[in-house]
C-alpha cells in the first residue's frame, strides 16, 4: 500500500511505520524459522546448508517475482510450472540440435528459452485480455497444453543435454559463485531488484496495483487496463525463462515431472510475502522471502529426526499456517 501512497496524499508518520512492520513480517517469520531449524538440529546452521537452501529457492523465487506482478494486478497464472518444463525442454533440444560447446551456441539457446517463455506468457495474456476469459481457466488450459507438449517432445522419457562439453561449460551457472555468492542467488537479487524498481518506481508499476485494486476506477482514470494486464503475463513469462536458464545447468535434463506444482509454490510464496491474492498490493522482496521460507521448511523437515516421513506434509503445512498467523498478529499488534 505504500505504492498507493505515492499516488495519494502523503502518509502520516505513524501509519508509515506500521506498514513497514507489515512489509518486514515475512522476514521476521524467516528469522523465526532459522531459529527453529537451529533448535531442531545444530548441523542445520552451517553456511553450506543455508547456501544450498537459498540457491535451491532460486527457481521459485524468480518465477514468483513474475507472479507478484500478475497477482497484484488481480490475475493468476497456473501454467508457470508446465511453462518452465516446456521451455527447458525446447532449450535442451536447441542445444542438442546446434551441437558443439561454443559460447555462441549457448547464448543462442538462452535466447530461444527467453523468447519461448515470453511468447507463452504473451499467449496467456492475449487470451485473458482479448478473449476476456477468466485467467484461472485460461492458465489451467495452458498448464495442460504446455505439460503435454513436454511429454510429447520427450516421447514420455527424458530430454537430456547430450554434449558433455556443453554440459560442463554451462554447469557453473547453477553451481558456480562470484565472490562466494552462488550465481542463482545473484540472479534472484537482480530479478527482484529490477522487479521492485518496475513495481514501485514506474508509472507501469502503479498501474499494475491500480488495476488490481479496482479495475473500473483504473479504467476511468485512463489506465490502459488491457495493456497492463497483458504485460504482467509477459513479465511472468520472462521470469519463467530466466528461471529455466539456471534450472537447465543443474541436472541438464527436462522430464515430464519437471516443474510439477511450481505454480502452487510460486503462488504460496507470493501470498506469504504479503501480496494480496485478490490483487491491489504487491511486495517483491516479501515474495523472495516467501520462496526462501518454503524451501527452508522442506529443509528443516529433512533435518528433523523426530518427524516420520509419512507426516512431513502435515508438519510442513502446519508450519506455513503458523508462520502466517504469527505475521498477522504482528501486523495487528503494530
Amino acid at each position: 500500500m505504500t505504492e498507493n501512497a505515492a499516488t495519494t496524499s502523503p502518509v502520516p508518520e505513524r501509519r508509515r511505520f506500521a506498514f513497514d512492520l507489515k512489509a518486514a513480517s515475512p522476514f521476521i517469520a524467516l528469522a523465526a524459522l532459522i531459529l527453529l531449524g537451529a533448535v531442531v538440529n545444530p548441523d542445520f546452521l552451517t553456511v553450506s546448508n543455508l547456501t544450498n537452501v537459498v540457491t535451491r529457492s532460486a527457481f521459485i523465487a524468480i518465477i514468483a517475482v513474475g507472479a507478484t506482478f500478475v497477482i497484484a494486478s488481480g490475475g493468476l497464472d497456473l501454467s508457470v510450472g508446465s511453462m518452465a518444463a516446456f521451455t527447458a525442454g525446447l532449450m535442451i533440444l536447441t542445444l542438442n540440435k546446434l551441437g558443439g560447446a561454443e559460447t555462441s551456441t549457448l547464448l543462442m539457446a538462452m535466447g530461444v528459452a527467453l523468447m519461448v517463455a515470453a511468447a507463452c506468457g504473451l499467449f496467456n495474456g492475449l487470451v485473458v485480455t482479448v478473449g476476456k476469459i477468466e485467467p484461472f481457466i485460461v492458465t489451467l488450459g495452458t498448464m495442460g497444453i504446455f505439460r503435454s507438449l513436454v511429454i510429447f517432445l520427450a516421447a514420455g522419457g527424458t530430454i537430456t543435454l547430450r554434449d558433455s562439453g556443453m554440459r560442463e561449460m554451462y554447469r557453473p551457472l547453477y553451481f558456480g559463485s562470484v565472490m562466494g555468492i552462488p550465481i542463482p542467488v545473484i540472479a534472484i537479487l537482480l530479478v527482484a531488484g529490477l522487479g521492485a524498481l518496475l513495481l514501485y518506481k514506474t508509472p507501469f508499476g502503479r498501474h499494475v496495483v491500480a488495476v488490481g485494486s479496482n479495475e473500473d476506477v483504473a479504467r476511468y482514470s485512463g489506465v490502459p487496463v488491457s495493456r497492463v494486464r497483458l504485460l504482467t503475463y509477459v513479465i511472468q513469462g520472462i521470469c519463467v525463462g530466466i528461471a529455466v536458464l539456471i534450472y537447465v545447468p543443474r541436472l541438464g535434463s527436462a522430464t515430464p515431472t519437471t516443474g510439477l506444482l511450481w505454480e502452487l509454490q510460486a503462488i504460496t510464496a507470493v501470498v506469504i510475502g504479503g501480496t494480496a491474492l485478490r490483487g491491489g498490493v504487491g511486495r517483491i522482496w516479501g515474495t523472495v522471502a516467501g520462496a526462501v521460507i518454503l524451501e527452508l521448511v522442506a529443509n528443516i523437515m529433512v533435518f528433523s529426526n523426530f518427524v516420520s516421513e509419512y507426516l512431513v506434509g502435515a508438519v510442513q503445512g502446519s508450519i506455513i499456517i503458523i508462520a502466517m498467523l504469527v505475521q498477522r498478529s504482528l501486523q495487528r499488534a503494530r
Partner: protein
Amino acid sequence: MKHTMLKSLAIAGLAVGLAGAAHAQEKKNVTIAVSIPAATHGWTGGAVYHAEEAAKRLQQTHPGLKVIVKTSPDGASQANALDDLMAQKIDALVVLPFNSDELTNPVREVKKRGTFITVVDRGLKDASIQDIYVAGNNPEFGRVAGKYFADTLKQGNVVVLRGIPTVIDDERVTNFEKALEGSGVKVIDKQYANWNRDDAFRVMQDYLSKHPKIDAVWASDDDMALGVLEAIRQAKREDIKFVLGGAGMKEMVKRVMDGDKMIPVNVSYPPALVATAMNVTAAHFYGNAPARGTYVLNAELITKDNAKNYYFPDSPF
C-alpha cells in the same frame, strides 16, 4: 526376468511355428486391444514404447492378428477407453490398470462379453477376472537391492530415497530393510523424493549437510539416482562408495556396462513387461498350448557382465 522372458519367448516361438501350421488350414483373425497409461513419466514412456514395438512384431508374425494400442492419461479416461475398445469387438484385452480400485469393474464388464483378459503389473481387486497376470516383482526389487548392500558393504551407513507413497514403494522399502537385517548396514535416514530428479537432488543435498558419513545411497529409482549423483558431485564428498537406483533406465544401464564405480549395479523392473504380456496373450490364440496363469518377472541384479541384455538404446526410458 531372464527365465520367464525365455519361457515366454519360447512360447511365442512355438506359437510362430504352430501358427505356420495352422495357417495352412485357416487364417485366424484375432483382435487384441492393449490399454496402458499414457507416457507421463519415464517408466510409462518405456511401457508405451515396448507395447508399440511388440504390436508391430506380433502383427508381422501372425497375419490375421490386429493389435490396437490405446493410452490414457488417468484412471477415468482409461475406463472410457475400455468402453470404446469393447465397441470394436475385441477378442483379448491386455490392460495395465492405472489403479486397482477404479478399474476392476470396467475390466469385469469387458470380461462379461467373453473377452480374454490379461492384466499387467498392477493387479485388480478381483483376481478371478484375469486369464493371465504378468507382473513385476516389487518386494523382490527391494530385497535384491538390500542384499547387494548387505553383501558389498558388510557394514556402514545408508540413506534411502523413497518414491511416491504407494503400495509399490512400501513393498520395495520394507523388503529392502528386511534384507539388511542382521548385517552391519544401517539405514540412517529415509525421505520421500517422489521418483523425481529435482526432489532427489534437494533431499540428497540435505542428507549431505546433515550426515557427516554416508557409505552408500539407495535411490530406489534411476531418475532419483541422477539427482543424487549431481548433489554428491557438488558437495565433493568422497565417503560415498556407490549409489543404487533401479528400474533399468538406459543411461544408467549404460553406466553399469561401462564400469562406472559410482553405479556398479542396477535392479531391473522392465517396462517391457507389457510386451511379455502381449506375447503370452498372442500365444494363447496362436500357440495351441496352455497360456493361462500368472507370470512374475524377476527383479534381477544388473551387473557389468549381463548389462547388455538390459540395454535398449532406442527406448525413451
